[in-house]
């Protein structure tokens, strides 16, 4: 693990997901001030910073869920701008994000199987294709068929987060952003989620962003650590 504060050394190499001079303010409060960050394929960038330093906001900007007030995001050197829903699907599906609290991020009416398959159906996959892929992913993240049939309220946080991870991988993203994604999980489930992500990364060369408050997890999992300055 290496620690860098100046991200420019990793440059705007052709491959990668990058934030370029990204600024975000909520009201008069600036949470990100001309921030640069670059995630190369295959690496796991750990992002550190104090509470309120905008780590989650930066993750949402990189996931194209939040448009910055200025600056932009690039994928493989190409600027992607504007709102996520207006982007072509091919771009939108290249970056996936996993949050800390799966409950607030999931539709309580969907079964875990539907939760995983939903993004596939949304991009036009047939029912058969979707269910085959869902079964594969469920197996990968360790969800039994019995659990897949349940709704979020009938499973534990750990099981729900496994489903969210499967959903995040459904389009085989090139970048996966983990925002405190294991903070609510017990040590065993956390280690399993990390193993699934690392394994996926090995097979796909995906770049991973890791936000965690746990220094032990950061040094074990991240291949490089970046400190986000407090604006």
């Amino acid at each position, binding site marked *: 693990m290496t620690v860098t504060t100046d991200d420019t050394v990793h440059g705007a190499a052709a491959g990668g997901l990058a934030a370029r001079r990204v600024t975000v303010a909520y009201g008069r409060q600036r949470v990100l001030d001309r921030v640069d960050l670059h995630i190369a394929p295959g690496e796991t960038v750990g992002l550190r910073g104090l*509470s309120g330093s905008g780590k989650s906001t930066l993750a949402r900007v990189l996931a194209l869920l939040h448009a910055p007030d200025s600056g932009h995001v690039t994928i493989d050197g190409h600027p992607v701008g504007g709102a996520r829903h207006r982007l072509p699907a091919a771009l939108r599906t290249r970056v996936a994000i996993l949050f800390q*609290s799966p409950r607030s991020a999931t539709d309580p009416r969907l079964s875990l199987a539907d939760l995983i398959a939903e993004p596939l159906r949304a991009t036009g996959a047939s029912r058969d294709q979707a269910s085959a892929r869902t079964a594969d992913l469920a197996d990968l993240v360790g969800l039994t068929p019995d659990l897949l049939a349940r709704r979020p309220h009938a499973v534990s946080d*750990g099981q729900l987060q496994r489903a969210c991870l499967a959903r995040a991988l459904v389009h085989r993203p090139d970048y996966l952003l983990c925002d405190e994604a294991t903070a609510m999980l017990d*040590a065993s489930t956390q280690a399993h989620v990390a193993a699934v992500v690392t394994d996926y990364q090995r097979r796909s060369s995906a770049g991973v962003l890791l936000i965690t408050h746990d220094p032990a997890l950061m040094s074990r999992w991240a291949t490089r650590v970046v400190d986000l300055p407090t604006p």
Partner: protein
Amino acid sequence: MTTTVPTDTRRAHALLGVDGLTVRFHLRGAVVHAVTDLSLTLHPGELLAVVGESGCGKSVLAHALLGLLPRNATVTGRAHLHPPDGHPVDLIDAGERHLTRHVRGRAVGLVPQSPATALTPVRSGRRLLEETLRAHGHTRRAAPAAADRIAADVGLDPGDLDRYPHELSGGMAQRLATALALAPDPPLLLADEPTTGLDRPLVDHTLDLLRRRCDTGAAVLLITHDLTAARRVADTVAVMYASRIVEHRPTAALFDAPAHPYTAGLLDALPDRAFTPVPGHPPMLTDLPDGCAFAPRCPRATDACHIPPRLLPDGAGRVACHHRLTPGAPA
């Protein structure tokens, strides 16, 4: 039958003595075994951490002790509370009226999980906190200063106190809920995942706050999935698996020389240890195996494990396993 450490002589001075606590939820066509034959003793000044994965039953324990379970729950066993300045009460048998008047908040405080839903939305944090203080003996004049002090204790800015719950971030709501639980100065505090949504500095701050309460004579039952948190502040750690305590011992001993294979597996999953998950999955609480519930995942399981292991004294602690690990022996 339960055997517990500490011994019965110390037990006489216990603040809380839980004996054979069992909680079942009755669903259509299924019974959830949420807590099974759980016994523990908590003394003034003691911080006991109950750890385990989500869904192992540890949060149900806190709710059972406060009579906050839904109607489809049945509770058996005993939970005697001996408040220093009040009459002993069996928390399981006490009626709703007694719990409301004498127990909840006053004798037993609760820092709830997901505080956002527990906070009254129409009052500012300051008003909630001052009302709580006044209900517990502070005068109208003394309450504002006390509110500021408690807010500072939990790491909340006075300015944040003037906001309404919906204006608070998850971490702020968590701190406000902690402040509200601390305000009546209860001799026993149940803290159910009190650091959810907090950044590391605030996690440590909150944990140290709980520790300081114990150092001044209160007792804390900390329910958490976070082993690092337990290690930082707990005197003893109880590990729950599939509704039962499987191991309970002084913190350093538990981390250095776990005796239960599940505890050992959980510790091995830590990122500063092997970072390998426990293989397999926990059983459904609606469908627990007959023998040891850990058997399908346990590297040491034998035929003997078809008989459920009892929680028995083991050194300075207790463990429920037919083939416990002994220090120095290979796992």
